[in-house]
């Protein structure tokens, strides 16, 4: 069953790049024109993003809006775009943050304006590309390409110690992704005999399916280990290393404890726009990577290392929150809160179960909205005072009431007060943790996160906004300008919309959740039933050539839900 081809995703991915060329052509001192052109590019991107989201049919096939072209066929690489439910939701999030990022830096960046905006647009293309790629090599190219503009955003436009932070960010991420590249090549060579290999995501996955099944059976029962195929034997032996490489690359991006220390530095030094994109979208590349690649390609290993990853996520939740309580620097605090929140995302995904996974997916979007908004709002304050420590503020509520209201709303979203978006995600993640095979205390420990979260966020609010005005300079601060108000308002409204009407988004995510859970559960196979396995295959648009393996199975039947133990 081939979905009809649609060029829409090409526009989603490459229109920002086209605008980047446009901006390059503009004279460097025409700051207004540059900003306006960038904003226009981002708005066009937003329109295409919304279009893609609206065009996605939750009841349809797994990957939609597919577009595929010949590209480096000899290497098994093709230009293949397409989105599933999670990807299209993240595309929407990315598209939404785009214009806000530009608006947030309208006054903040006055030097090298052209370079700054080109970076933003290129970054947008890279992020969209990584989300929309259905070819693993294409994904890898976009995934790495994100690093370059981000490196410049931090290293050129950041604060005092920007270069050190940028270097740390770059090297940290690169280490992980290079290991991933190795593992990727390994998987590629493993996936089949010469000539049938492909970097296409679906082909790679489908080719490994049978081997994965044998590995899982073998890991469950030694009796099945005797007559493994060559692929399965290799996967059994080296699978942990490959999974480890993928997991490390994505864990650094998330970031999970203990590979998180680049994040506070990067956030502290990055300009507002950098922090917003970093927290809003870039971190999600880690969780998205786990979801798309690490878990489905290596389900047996995912189960085998579930405990380790869950332990790291739990540490992330509690430890991240405790770190927040020890900070003086507000940006650093928000960065550590990301560690805690992303811990929830990872935990949900690692429940391998419907509610938790859905919560994780939703939490990715929530984190983008609420932490993106936290950085945006703090950026507005930073723009006025150029100070980051809590002790430098106090009594801001008097001077900036509207700003305070916005910040409070985002705070409540961040600590998951019901009615805001954070609650839905966090509730589902915790529910999933309780329902999953994990021990009960894991769920209880994760739930303590709600206490710590309130403790540190309200501490910030207290120190910055309440109390008497301690410094004269804070007394005369101007409340939000119209531009700032317009920038913050969409996120503030989204907090409530996503909190009270989550169902439309959950429905888009739902098929992806079902497939993710089913695919991870391949590792717990039931030797008797082979029928369900056919449904796990991926179906994508094929190149009009017989070179690549043909997979032709009906995809429309509903998936069973193995998330709960029977």
């Amino acid at each position, binding site marked *: 069953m081939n979905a009809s081809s649609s060029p829409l995703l090409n526009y989603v991915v490459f229109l920002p790049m086209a605008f980047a060329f446009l901006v390059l052509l503009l004279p460097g001192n025409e700051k207004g024109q540059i900003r306006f052109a960038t904003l226009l590019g981002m708005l066009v991107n937003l329109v295409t993003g919304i279009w893609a989201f609206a065009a996605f049919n939750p009841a349809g096939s797994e990957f939609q809006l597919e577009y595929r072209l010949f590209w480096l066929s000899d290497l098994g690489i093709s230009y293949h775009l397409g989105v599933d439910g999670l990807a299209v939701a993240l595309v929407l999030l990315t598209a939404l943050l785009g214009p806000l990022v530009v608006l947030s830096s309208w006054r903040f960046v006055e030097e090298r304006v052209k370079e700054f905006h080109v970076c933003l647009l290129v970054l947008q293309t890279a992020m969209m590309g990584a989300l929309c790629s259905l070819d693993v090599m294409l994904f890898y190219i976009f995934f790495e390409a994100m690093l370059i503009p981000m490196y410049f955003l931090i290293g050129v436009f950041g604060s005092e110690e920007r270069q050190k932070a940028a270097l740390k960010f770059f090297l940290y991420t690169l280490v992980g992704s290079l290991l991933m590249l190795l593992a990727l090549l390994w998987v590629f060579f493993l996936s089949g005999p010469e000539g049938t290999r492909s970097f296409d995501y679906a082909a790679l996955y489908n080719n490994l399916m049978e081997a994965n099944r044998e590995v899982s059976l073998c890991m469950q029962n030694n009796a099945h280990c005797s007559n493994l195929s060559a692929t399965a034997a290799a996967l059994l032996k080296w699978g942990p290393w490959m999974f480890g490489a993928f997991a490390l690359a994505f864990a650094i991006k998330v970031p999970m404890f203990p590979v998180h220390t680049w994040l506070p530095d990067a956030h502290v030094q990055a300009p507002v726009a950098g922090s917003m994109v970093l927290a809003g979208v870039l971190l999600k590349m880690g969780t998205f990577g786990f979801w798309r690649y690490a878990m489905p390609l290596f389900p047996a290993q995912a189960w085998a290392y579930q405990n380790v990853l869950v332990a790291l996520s739990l540490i992330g939740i509690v430890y991240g929150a405790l770190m*927040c309580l020890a900070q003086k620097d507000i940006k650093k605090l928000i960065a550590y809160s990301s560690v805690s929140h992303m811990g929830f995302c990872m935990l949900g995904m690692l429940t391998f179960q419907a509610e938790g996974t859905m919560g994780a997916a939703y939490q990715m979007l929530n984190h983008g909205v609420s932490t993106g908004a936290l950085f945006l709002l703090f950026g507005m304050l930073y723009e006025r005072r150029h100070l980051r420590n809590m002790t430098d503020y106090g009594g801001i509520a008097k001077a900036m009431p509207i700003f305070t209201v916005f910040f409070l709303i985002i705070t409540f979203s961040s600590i998951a007060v019901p009615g805001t978006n954070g609650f839905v995600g966090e509730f589902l993640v915790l529910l999933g943790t309780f329902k999953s095979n994990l021990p009960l205390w894991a769920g209880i420990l994760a739930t303590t996160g709600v206490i710590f979260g309130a403790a540190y966020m309200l501490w910030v609010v207290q120190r910055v906004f309440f109390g008497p005005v301690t410094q004269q300079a804070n007394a005369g601060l101007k409340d939000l300008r119209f531009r700032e108000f317009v920038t913050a308002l969409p996120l503030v409204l989204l907090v409530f919309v996503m909190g009270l009407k989550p169902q439309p988004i959950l429905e888009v995510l739902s098929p992806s959740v079902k497939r993710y859970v089913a695919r991870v559960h391949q590792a717990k196979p039931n030797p008797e039933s082979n029928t369900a396995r056919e449904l796990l295959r991926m179906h994508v648009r094929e190149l009009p050539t017989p070179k690549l393996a043909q997979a032709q199975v009906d995809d429309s039947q509903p998936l069973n839900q193995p998330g709960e133990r029977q």
Partner: protein
Amino acid sequence: MEKLFPEYPFSIQNIENGLWLIIALPLLGALINGVFGKALGRKNVHWVACASVGGSFLLSLLVMWALGNVNTSVFNPFSPDISRYALSADYGTWFSAGSFKVSFGLWADRLSATMLLVITGVGFLIHLYSTSYMEHDKGYAKYFCFLNLFVAMMLTLVLADSLVLLFVGWEGVGLCSYLLIGFWYDDNAKAWAGRKAFITNRIGDFGFLVASFLLVLLVTAAVREAPQGTPVSSYRFSTGLSEKGPLAFQSLSALATTLAATDTTAKPNQETPALVMNRDIETGPLKGYSYAGVLTAVLLFFLLGAAGKSAQLPLYVWLPDAMAGPTPVSALIHAATMVTAGVYLFCRISYLVVLSPFAMATIAVVGCLTALIAALIAFAQDDIKKILAYSTVSQLGFMFMGIGCGLFWAAFLHVVTHAFFKACMFLGAGSVMHGNGDETNIKRLGGLRREMPWTSWTFLIGTLAITGIVPLSGFFSKDAILFGLETQQLTGYVPVLHTLYWLGLIAAACTAFYMVRLYVLTFEGKRSPLAKLPHAHESAWPMTLPLVVLAALSVLAIAHGLPLLSLPHSPHHSQTLMEAYLFPVFNVANQLGADTQKLLKTGLDKTEWTSLLWTGWFKAWLIALVSGGISALLYFKLWRGGRKFPAILEPLRRFAQNKFFVDELYELLFIERAKGLAKGLYRYVDAFFVDRVAVHGTAQTVGFLGRVLCWFQNGNVQAYASAIALALAVGLTYALLQVLS
């Protein structure tokens, strides 16, 4: 009762569909005042605020009226039964994932309807009062925005038809409480008090969430393992589950019925079905735990939640500090409504509560200890609001005792009467502060009776009501609870309840003592020379009118506590009006308690019962009278006019005045520890070990290796040549040695 009022004349369908309006009106008010408050001007702001709550009050009256009708019934989505005396409405799915679902469903039965009237009624009076009390405040619109929002959230809490939606209200009221306690945020101490309240409540919310998740697991396990013929194994239940999710109250009720039906403690000889309440769960995440055990754990986690919201041990510490907020807020949130949410929660899930005698006994013990400790602390306080706060904590303890002994209606009756008299007294305290330049120290007041007649008379009525003097409402509600402690047969814990009865009497005596002290020092005698203003002034009518109405209600509410003349339901004991009215709500719980023989009524005949009732009443009344009398005597005569407190008792008084150092203890034990842990982890683990040693260590090792290799790659051809020569020489020597040996 049906005869007292005419039949409900309107369509039941209409009121069901309009249930959301009860919440939406105050929410709209909050929105209007929040967004356009500045532009509207004060007049319009309080019009919007009062009218929205007033509108909700009228709608609540209609709901109450409709619920008097036997034909007001709804289909239960989880079983083929019909729920009588209830209204429900479903406004679609909120969120769903996997097999879990929550809908925006509202449910009004007589319990929620009574709460609705209290919230909107007392709420309206307090809004009215606030128009005068907050007259000169700069944040007038903001204040009413928060107050309206609070009312909306509280209404959500009582109208919710599932635990998740109830949790929306539960956290929502906590949020509003945070905002209102820290209303005058430029005072650091007040803002900190708000934060303390929120975080303490969050500890409770943690308990609430864990309990909810465990309940989901319990329902799932029961559905899987229940034998045929039980409510949860029916087809209807599975459709209900997919329609409303496992945390809807009707689902929990079916769960309770199922568990009770398979309980074997009472019927040891019965053939045991597959699912047994006392047997271990066989599959799923709860494997290895018994249903009864998990249920007890659930209730204890809920107790933690309720202790946070209703200021019980060990989480009561936030409530006295919460007095930092404006006084009407203390009256509405921290006396009449929000703090009773824990009691409401247990009444809502009464059918689950009765299945665990251990949890019930724990609830009762926690309530009793709270009542005693708070009362003892209240002895030594001099701040009028603090005394009232501790008395609230103490009275909430009484309500928990009522829950613990299974007399849900009595606990709830105390919620209602307490709402009236405590709101009356808090507003009275506000009026006193308003007329005396915000003086709160009762030792610097005195003699206000002549200057503030309305305030003092209504305060006196409130004092008498809480003390438990006969013709006032507090007497009936408090003594119903004490009587319950004496007569309820909680299997295995009867001696506990009997002990609590005596402790409860002591707490009641303390209440009488400190409340009379408060009244006498504030209103009687001569004006203190330390007073801020030479003369107090009586407040304006928007403030005195609510006082009068609430005082009148404190008296009239005795109607709820009076025994009914006709006794249709029960052969051997007389039901009070409240008990009869709430009969449809607590019927299931009473049935289950009796069926499983976990909670029984004493098998007394009618005359024994009556005599026990009368002696109980007399005892309680006498104790209140004597204790109050001693207090009046002491503070009227002995310690009036700067007379010293006896020196022997001074350390004790200090100890009580400093609230037994509980706050300091918590600070030392938990807060400092957590802060120390956070700082230590940050400094040593994160900054030093992970970042410096591991990350920078790796970088520096690589750098070092690079420098070492640099030393070789120095571009000096002679050095290269000598290295080659050296290597060659070593190689040759080695080869030679190999050949020779």
